[in-house]
């Protein structure tokens, strides 16, 4: 088991030594069960850091957001940011490193192994508790989750309440870190990788199309899925109206005729187009932290889209994203020993 005291004392050292500008970790939230991201800047505040099965967020996102924030600052603090990263989060950092979005010296990675466990899925938990609110959730070495509610403690098997991505996760420890907490556990034995997406693949084309139409219809285009994704870092996204640069010379006609690939309207076509664009832009980059699916207020199973592309990248090109910052990226590389003939 990972002891939070170990993480706190390392965080304290880093802050006291002035080696980092902040330690980005998790603390309890007033909003509900899940922990929330926190930037600890004063060493006496490290006591607020927590570590348990409610630390679901992929904090690598903030490497991107902080970069944008710093660009606007007149005198940015350029010391590195320390960041607590689970296995999946560390793979996201690797992709950002690989894409030269961040440099290795800009980040101090406090890697944490999930060992034999993972993080909770609040929707599964709500089902399992039949509406009772959970006050805390702690995962043991075998993935069993102990949940406290107002009327006592309940223990659930992993499959009932852990996030699907954790059940399917094969490398539940950081692929890159400066300090690592916890043991590397290779035998997890919950579910096979790609189990969820394989169930969709069994549908006929018509069934699948109806399945997605039904889900996309609910999308309110809040873009929480995009905003929470560490890989969706473009300054200008095709769906935003800012993707058209206006200068004093731009005529009214040019403004009126600007190309809008995707309208703001939440019509079925525009919604489907948005999701298609996002999925394609994540092929070979998505590391399956499943944050997009977690944050979707209307419960669209977005993880299925991205893992299906992840599966194709693996089956067609033997490519797994986020394993190594030095590996050439899937989209921009060509290999002689590519397993697929069609490309040669």
């Amino acid at each position: 088991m990972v002891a939070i005291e170990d993480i706190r004392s390392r965080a304290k050292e880093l802050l006291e030594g002035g080696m980092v500008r902040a330690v980005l970790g998790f603390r309890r939230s007033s909003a509900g069960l899940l922990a929330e991201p926190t930037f600890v800047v004063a060493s006496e505040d490290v006591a607020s850091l927590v570590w348990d099965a409610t630390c679901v967020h992929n904090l690598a996102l903030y490497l991107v957001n902080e970069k944008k924030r710093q660009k606007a600052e007149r005198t940015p603090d350029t010391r590195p940011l320390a960041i607590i990263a689970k296995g999946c989060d560390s793979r996201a950092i690797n992709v950002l490193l690989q894409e030269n979005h961040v440099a290795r010296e800009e980040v101090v990675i406090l890697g944490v192994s999930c060992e034999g466990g993972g993080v909770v899925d609040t929707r599964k938990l709500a089902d399992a508790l039949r509406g009772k609110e959970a006050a805390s959730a702690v995962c043991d070495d075998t993935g069993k989750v102990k949940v406290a509610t107002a009327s006592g403690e309940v223990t659930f098997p992993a499959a009932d309440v852990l996030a699907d991505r954790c059940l399917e996760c094969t490398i539940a420890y950081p692929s890159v870190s400066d300090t690592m907490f916890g043991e590397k556990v290779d035998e997890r034995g919950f579910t096979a990788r790609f189990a969820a997406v394989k169930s969709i693949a069994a549908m006929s084309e018509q069934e699948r199309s109806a399945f997605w139409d039904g889900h996309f219809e609910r999308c309110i285009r809040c873009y929480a899925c995009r905003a929470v994704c560490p890989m969706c870092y473009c300054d200008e996204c095709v769906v935003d109206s800012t993707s058209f640069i206006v200068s004093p010379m731009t005529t009214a006609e040019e403004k009126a005729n600007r190309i809008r690939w995707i309208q703001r309207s939440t019509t079925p076509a525009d919604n489907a187009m948005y999701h298609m664009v996002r999925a394609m832009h994540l092929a070979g980059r998505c590391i399956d932290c499943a944050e997009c699916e977690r944050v979707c207020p209307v419960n669209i199973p977005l993880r299925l889209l991205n893992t299906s592309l992840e599966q194709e990248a693996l089956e067609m090109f033997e490519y797994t994203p986020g394993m190594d910052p030095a590996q050439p990226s899937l989209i921009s590389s060509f290999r002689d020993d590519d397993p697929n003939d069609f490309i040669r």
Partner: protein
Amino acid sequence: METILKKERLSEWVAQIGARATVFAPAFADGIWNFCAVAADTKVEFDHGNTVRPAKGFVFPQREVLYRFRQESGKAPELMETLPAAAPTVVFGVRPCDGRAMVRNDKVFTCGFNDPYYQARRDQVVFVGLACSEPPSQNCFCLSVGGSPHSEDGLDVLMTELDGRYHVKAITAKGREIVEGAAALLDKAQAADGKAAAKAHADADKHPQRALATMEKVAAGLKEHFDSPKWDELARACIGCGACTYLCPSCHCFDINDEITSNVPLTGERVRTWDNCQFPDFTMHSSGHNPRHDTGARLRQRVSHKLLYFVENHNIQQCTGCGRCISHCPVGIDIVRVATEVSGQ
């Protein structure tokens, strides 16, 4: 006008109304509570938490066509009016906070200038509220913003669950119409029923909720601390999505765009869609300058609009305490905590 409906007759009442109007009621589908159209002979039961999407969409849909246009080259453009042909709609199971939000939306869309698109829908919809016997979410705080789990504001009918029956109170003329139209199903409430409803309401008020200081204190505190460094601190984790505002029953900002369907001849529609102050491009000027350039400035706008500016303009808070923005924020940004910490109250 107060009546009593036996629980087992709820579906019958809904079916009767369904013969004349489209009926919506909360249903649990695809893992969330939502207002769904009730098909004939569906059994309707109320055991819902608050719906993820608020009731505002019935009067202020996410997409509204304002008019159509057509222009042959070299000729003057023709404009075709497209006022919504709203059909009579009855929405059941509306929580009192969503009802109160409707009063706020009315202020925005019908006071001073009467928005014909909004009004056309508003005239046709009847909101049948359901009093909360206990807060459906741990983030409810209606009592702190002038509301209550049994507020009648903005509702046409208020139903209160009693033992085996509902106390049904018609509040507006529209409400009386659907209650009177079902005289055969609804019994006249006796004095004891009125008392039982009052007791249910008093009990509901006793359930603990999240708490915020008074309207005056919060507003004064937010005004005083407009430049507080806490805004940046509290918003540092905000990811700038639209979950909080799109799900808010009283957020009403919109964008207007032309959607072209053909270039020659030029045809298309001018449409109004929801917009929100948390998107970076919301305040982006065409020069590229953005006056609300970061999440701190945007969080300040959202919270201050709800709890300060609306108070200054209308003397009521815009927030009705439904708690959606707290429960659905991906990173736990909590309007109660933010307002409390910044205002120092």
